[in-house]
């Protein structure tokens, strides 16, 4: 594993190599070489299984991290490949030619995070949101409460209580608390 990572770090300039626990290592790679690196891992290093793809929204830092979780059956080891892409122009190379199931993940990422994967099959078809015209809902700036308030109507007589406020005011009124 270490020799492989050393070689990859020289060839592909991978950074932030962290062994999270035995059998799980994460690293970050540039967007331009990510698809080549993943192909190399699949064809030469035995990471033939794509467990999943997902994205993390680092809104404060202005980028998305696209995560590819690869698994090597023989070594019983997983690699988490992280690729940071610009949040404003969220576009990533498609890997549907490497794994057939990837295009389903890419459809999900396009719909829920707004990340585009040019060339990916059926990318613009609705995945789970039909007729959605808001911003992609998994983006952190999407406010679920505000959306519900302007979209749905509550029944009369319905009230909600914030659990923390309820504990301070009703259950433990004598304790004060650090609000």
């Amino acid at each position, binding site marked *: 594993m270490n020799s492989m990572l050393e070689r990859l770090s020289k060839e592909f300039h991978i950074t932030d190599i962290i062994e999270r626990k035995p059998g799980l290592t994460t690293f970050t790679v540039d967007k331009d070489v990510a698809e080549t690196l993943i192909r190399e891992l*699949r064809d030469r290093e035995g990471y*033939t299984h794509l*467990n*999943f793809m997902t994205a993390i929204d680092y809104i404060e830092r202005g980028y998305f991290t696209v995560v590819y979780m690869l698994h090597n059956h023989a070594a*019983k080891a997983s690699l988490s490949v992280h690729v940071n892409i610009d949040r404003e122009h969220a576009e990533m190379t498609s890997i549907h030619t490497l*794994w057939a199931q990837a*295009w389903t993940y890419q459809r999900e990422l396009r719909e829920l995070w707004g990340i585009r994967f040019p060339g990916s099959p059926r990318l613009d078809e609705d995945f*789970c949101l039909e007729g959605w015209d808001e911003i992609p*809902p998994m983006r952190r700036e999407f406010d679920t409460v505000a959306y519900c308030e302007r979209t749905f109507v509550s029944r009369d007589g319905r009230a909600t209580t914030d659990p923390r406020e309820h504990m301070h005011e009703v259950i433990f009124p004598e304790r004060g608390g650090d609000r």
Partner: protein
Amino acid sequence: MPQPPTHSSSLDMAPREPLDLSSGKYVKLWQGPQHPGITGNMSLELTLCGDEIVECKTHVGYLHRGFEKFMERRTFIQNFTVVCRIAVPEPTFNEYLYSAAVEELAGIEVPERANWLRALNLEMMRLASFLMWTGGMSGAFGLYTVPNWTLTYRDYILDLFEELTGARIYHMYIVPGGVRNPLPDGWKEKTLEILKGTEKLMREVDRVMLNNAVFKARAKGLGVITPDMIDPYGIVGPNARACGFTNATCAKTNPTWCTISWILTSSPAAPQTPTNAPSYASRKSTSASASFARCSSARPTVVPSRRACPTYCTGRSRPAKPT
């Protein structure tokens, strides 16, 4: 028996010519979201040419409910009540995964006994989920006797869950740091008794469902998964193991009820003396146990030899049991 097609490491995803639906050769058919064979609200958009499905598109519907987004606004402990609702038939696995993630982030070490109680809980949930699936699948084939049997036994297991955790479906038993309570008095004996019956039931299911001419005629040769399909389709766990892929990550190959019996009788979590732990639903479980006793056999429980810690335990070596 028709031979399954072979698959290269990645499937041919080249765009195909769209089907001419006005040619009179094809019929468009929606299967689901209200269909007895497809529970939940998923649907399949099928294009048929005679009896052959020539195109199928999956619509996931609202099965993808955005739980991650739902959890964004909540605290760690508030999210705990959310994660088990991701799946009704097997909520315990989500509890465990969430707890394990919180423990890993916070650096919390779980006591070994709690780990074994977690293993016990997860194996019981697996058994209950398996019984539900078996009944559902049998019902989809038109064999409605088997679901009555398997759902009855699932209900016995839910009774045990109720006594142990206070809830039948959403147990919230596995919490970050361990589990909520030890085994109640008498719970071990009831569980072993129900496992005996389950083992007998599985033999009956094998005879009535898997050896049934209708089942064989409709299922044999269909939906075959071969080892070379595992990577292109992302198949994992029991499905990968079942097609002969031995490197698949999944629980031990022994039957679930053997694992539960072993944990209850020989693991460090096995109750040695009465614990005086509270029973959350003793009245109900007593009645369930009594009704169960009427239909259980006197067959001895299969107890496997000493086992390694299940994959979802920490993997630390187990101390020798005092003799």
